[in-house]
């Protein structure tokens, strides 16, 4: 593990995960200890689904450290159909180079899916993150197909209740809040068993009430 951690520091931010997968998945550190330790960071080139019952439990914050690293590349970070305004001061406080952010507003699922697909395939995005209020298996299959050929961080958020039960998405993660904690359950992952109840402090709590 120690060498792996060193890799994070010295080599580029991408390192090869230890776990064996169908193909060689690349990971980017999430900079969240519990996640990095459990699964080695966020996979690239594989679609990740985040579901939560409500917004505000720290779900987007799970990605922000990774986005900060990715924003150092000369590529876009595409945010597609975000539910609210991605608030620039907060993102830049998190260290994200906000000039890399590309916000794409769509009015229906098929546009969202199309835009995500375009963004993934264009080779010009280091991360493609979408928000669905509803999605179909077919759409997700196509997106995953696009992801297969890329080294992009691809993720989508969807309300727990709207997410289809069986999806081709290789990574599925549910996020819940419990007081100061953000609770993470990895319900599906490539080349591994589900992992439940990883916990991290909600970053907002960290900031306003964090230890001195």
């Amino acid at each position, binding site marked *: 593990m120690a060498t792996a951690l060193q890799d994070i520091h010295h080599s580029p931010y991408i390192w090869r995960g230890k776990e064996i997968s169908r193909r060689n998945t690349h990971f980017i550190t999430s900079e969240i200890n519990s996640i990095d330790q459990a699964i080695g960071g966020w996979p690239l080139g594989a679609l990740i689904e985040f579901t939560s019952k409500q917004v505000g439990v720290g779900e987007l914050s799970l990605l922000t450290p990774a986005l900060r690293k990715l924003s150092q590349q000369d590529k876009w970070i595409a945010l597609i159909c975000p539910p609210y305004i991605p608030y620039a001061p907060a*993102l*830049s406080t998190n260290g994200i180079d906000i000039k890399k952010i590309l916000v794409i507003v769509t009015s229906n699922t098929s546009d969202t899916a199309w835009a995500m697909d375009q963004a993934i395939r264009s080779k010009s995005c280091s991360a493609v993150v979408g928000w669905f209020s509803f999605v179909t298996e077919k759409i997700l299959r196509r997106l995953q197909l696009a992801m297969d050929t890329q080294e992009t961080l691809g993720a989508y958020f969807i309300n727990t209740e709207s997410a289809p039960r069986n999806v081709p998405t290789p990574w599925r993660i549910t996020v819940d809040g419990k007081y100061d904690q953000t609770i993470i359950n990895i319900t599906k992952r490539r080349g591994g068993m589900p992992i439940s109840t990883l916990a991290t402090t909600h970053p907002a709590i960290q900031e306003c009430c964090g230890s001195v």
Partner: protein
Amino acid sequence: MLWLCLNFPKIAIEALIPKWEDVNPTAIIDSGQPPQIIAFNKKAQKIGLQKYMSLSSAFAISSELQVFPRSIHKEIKHLEDIATWALQYSSHTSVQPPDCVLIEIGSSIKLFGGLESLTLKITKSINALGHTTIMSSATTPLGAAWLARSGFNVHLQSRKELENCIYRLPVSLIGNAQQVNSIRSFGIRTIGEIAQLPRKEVTQRLGADLLDKIDRAIGVIPDPQPPTPIPEHFKKKLELTVPTEDLSSILFGIRRMVIQLESFLSLRNTGTTHFAIHLKDESLKTHDIRFKLSRPSRNSKHLTDLIRERLNQETLPSRTESITLECLNESPLSAQNFSLLPDQNQTTEDGIQLIEKLRARLGYDNVFGISSIPDGRPEKAWAKNIPGKQSKENPSYLRPTWLLPKPKKLYTKDNNPLLDGPLIIIDGPERIETGWWDEQDTRRDYFVARTTDHALIWIFRELPEGTNWFLHGIFS
């Protein structure tokens, strides 16, 4: 030889203020301390500006006055442009600084139907270029220039006549300020009076060039003029004094340059099939628009039409600072049949293409970047932006990842805010009182609160101690 001299008495202002901007009383000042008014437009004349007036007296007359410092560099540039443009009337034109252009018309006068018709033609075109001019002609270049500078519209074909006229002109024409001052200190007022003084003594006191100039002016000694070279390449830039987004202003400026392009092409007896317009905005970002014609042309009206049509479809920079017109190729003229083929964007960068593609389907406004703006008011601390544009930093305050487009009013119970149940305040208040200067004085106490569902939200209460609570952000 017969020289036509075009004097531009208002070049100082015309070089700086394009005609379409000429709406307010405007004056040009020199770099003196205190500055003096050296030129002004009609409006300023009307309200009583006078040449060599001090700037403060001018302001005392009108506080509306717009003032710009003189740019000799730009004046000369304009004169050079005019000399080049005038090559269509003669193979020999020349700039006579600081304010004249000479055209040798002896050999071409017949071609243009006589002096009167020629001067009429020139006056009309000069006006279209946005200049005012006074013209005189004489057998010597300097003679013509002195006449025109003195404000005469005369055409003298004989040497004797010229000499008589020149001798009556004031000494101010013939030397630098220091020379003129010493000539005047001897009580001498006209060029003729100098000519009568002992030649050797004058040369001793005022230098040899002075009498030389008189000799050249009256044709005693020759006065060769450096001809204006026919340019190899056409690229003209027009700086706007006031950045504008007004299409008609931009077109006005472009038209002026297209007229010059036409003259350039006709000199070279060619047309163009490929030219470009570069609009530079305040951030010095350039907006390039390329034009391809299927057949070469130099007709200024035709070219202007094409440009207008195209610009109507383009999204122009919000505040254009300068316009450049560049001719990218020339070819011999053929039949007058044109069509416009918009040029393909040469930049094939994936990122730009992605944006174009997305915009094409989702609409221009639905694809944007975001920037952070240093402003105490949360809703003003961000803005939509051109993707990829650098923005200023805000301090690292505690702020939510999601901001609501509009604060959402919360229900309250006993003055306590509710959102799907009671809220628990985690942090705050952070008091924000700012923004009063632009009608949006924002006075709020912000709190971080937790919902019963364990979501963290950003809420505020209006001040002074109001009871209205609002949801403004979510810590996603």
